[in-house]
């Protein structure tokens, strides 16, 4: 049994009685200790997926259907108390911007101790001890003194290390990291990512890494989900997706990487932009930007098929596959 199974998860946003679909029945699994990357442009629904898994969507977003099975139990059907005992304990989250994730008027120690004591019967002193150990694990110098400092006294990189330490406090099974390095200085992004990878490896923690950095995905994750307009359009082993992407969108993303272009020439970007939620095109949502689009793409949403190591939702890939099978039949 996988650690986490998401089944047909649908999220909608309501706006003055009207509702738009932000997440369109997505399904995926994360095994114990597995590191999964979720990539896509802004607005693809990556962060919404992360928050929906914790049932922490903020209004006007709401979950319209589907299941989030954590160790076989549906998180969305649990009582508020059960959900709370899961959050921060079995399933932890790391946010994007460490400058705003920590409460400015509480000390680091208060914020770590309260997390421990929300889930375990510990004295204040015992909780402080554990917090000190965790801070040391994420290479915070003089952790004892940090506990009595306020967030504004620490740098962004230091704060993100502390957020990671907080996520690890209760030895969770899964960490959802929502662009954990985007808001940081480029020089420390690699350090933080390496730390996160090391922590997940050594503690056998599952990781769902939400990012738009394909380089990071290839270094850190074992499996990758590519999202576009609220759907997973390609999923598979990270190696396969990076080396042999099947969906035209994924191919476009990889071709757009600066490493794929000789110095001095223009980057190969994907023309157009992600459709907005209330103007979703018919058929395959990528067809207006797709170089291979045909009439079928404009009218019908493609099904997910298995092809060359990956699961992919594309009519063109489906056509190639049926050609192959018919050739094989002959």
């Amino acid at each position, binding site marked *: 049994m996988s650690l986490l199974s998401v089944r047909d998860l649908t999220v909608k946003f309501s706006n003055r009685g009207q509702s738009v679909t932000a997440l369109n029945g997505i399904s995926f699994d994360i095994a114990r200790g597995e590191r999964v990357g979720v990539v896509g442009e802004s607005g693809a629904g990556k962060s919404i997926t992360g928050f929906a898994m914790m049932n922490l969507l903020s209004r006007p977003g709401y979950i319209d259907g589907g299941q989030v099975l954590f160790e076989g139990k549906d998180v969305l059907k649990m009582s508020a108390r059960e959900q*709370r005992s899961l959050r921060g304990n079995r399933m932890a989250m790391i946010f994007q911007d460490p400058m705003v994730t920590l*409460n*400015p*008027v*509480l*000390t680091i120690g208060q914020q770590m101790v*309260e997390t421990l004591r*929300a889930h375990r019967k510990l004295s204040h002193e015992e909780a402080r001890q554990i917090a000190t150990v965790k801070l040391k694990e994420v290479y915070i110098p003089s952790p004892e003194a940090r506990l009595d400092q306020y967030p504004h006294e620490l740098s962004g990189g230091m704060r993100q290390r502390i957020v990671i330490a907080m996520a690890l406090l209760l030895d969770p099974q899964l960490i959802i990291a929502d662009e954990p390095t985007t808001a940081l200085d480029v020089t420390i992004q690699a350090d933080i990512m390496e730390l996160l990878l090391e922590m997940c490896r050594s503690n056998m923690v599952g990781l769902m890494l939400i990012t738009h950095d394909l380089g990071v995905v290839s270094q850190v994750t074992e499996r990758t989900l590519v999202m576009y307009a609220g759907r997973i359009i390609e999923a598979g082993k990270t190696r396969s997706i990076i080396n042999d992407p099947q969906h035209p969108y994924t191919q476009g993303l990889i071709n757009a990487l600066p490493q794929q272009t000789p110095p001095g020439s223009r980057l190969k970007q994907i023309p157009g932009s992600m459709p907005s939620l209330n103007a979703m095109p018919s058929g395959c949502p990528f067809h207006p930007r797709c170089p291979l689009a045909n009439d079928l793409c404009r009218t019908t949403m493609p099904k997910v098929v298995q092809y060359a190591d990956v699961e992919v939702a594309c009519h063109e890939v489906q056509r190639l596959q049926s050609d192959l099978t018919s050739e094989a039949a002959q």
Partner: protein
Amino acid sequence: MFAYLVKRVFQAIAVMLVISLIGFAIQGNLGDPLRELVGQSVSEEVRQELRDDLGLNDPFLVQYWRFLGNALQGDLGTSYFFKEPAVDVILKKLPATLELVFGATLIIVGLSVPLGVYTAIKPNSWISRAIMAISIIGISIPVFLTAILMIYLFSVELGWAPSFGRGETVHVIGYWDTNFLTVDGWAHIIMPSIALSSIMLPMFIRLIRAEMMEVLQSEYVRFAKAKGIAPWRIYFVHALKNTLLPVITVGGVQIGTMVAYTILTETVFSWPGMGSMFLEAVNRVDTPLIVAYLIVVGFIFVVTNTIVDLIYGLVNPTVKLARLGA
């Protein structure tokens, strides 16, 4: 901390100098002190002599300097009507006013925080809607009208509370008699306090609600939820502390403003404080008393603001007092 304190005190002194200058300028231009002192049956020569004796013909700055020197020694002139030092007249009336402001502050602090937090947490419940509707009415009706309506309803029609005066008080020390030690005193102070708080209370409920709702949308509240923290702790530890920081600053200014609002409340309830005294002084053109009132109220305002700023510095960890002072 010390440097910051010194800086704040200097700012306060500068503000007091400006207030005293305005006060003094009023004194020189409001009525003729000679007429108040000797009436009309004295000849012009004697008047001129008196003017010289009193220093009224000296240049403006010389007179102001003398006024300032006297003020620093606690002498703000002599009331024409009471024939005693204006400061003494005010100090006798001050405790009644301060007790009224204190009563109103208790009501505001005691009710605005729970009601503001409640309306922020449950913005769509009918109780919240009712609170917000009533608060709009409270803000819209002028204090004197609220006071008169209250007297009509609770004193005249229902007879629940007395409509004027301080009632039975207990002597504490010096000029200070208190309302808070007798049942009759409480009965007398309750309606004026409510009337005085009738504008500030709704304002604070709305302010706390707006701040709290904004804080509840913040990333750190979301992060606290993702850590599995119980809702009560998120509301009252994570959110409330951040909510109250800006409220403290506004609160300091408003307590000072309330001292001025007492003029209306005290007049309607015949409350023997310095607000109603000020109105009487204006009617009698008792210039020294008017000026002394302005300066004393200005002083109270400046002192409360300075104290509130210092408290803000202590409560908000992101304000490093030592660094600010440097």
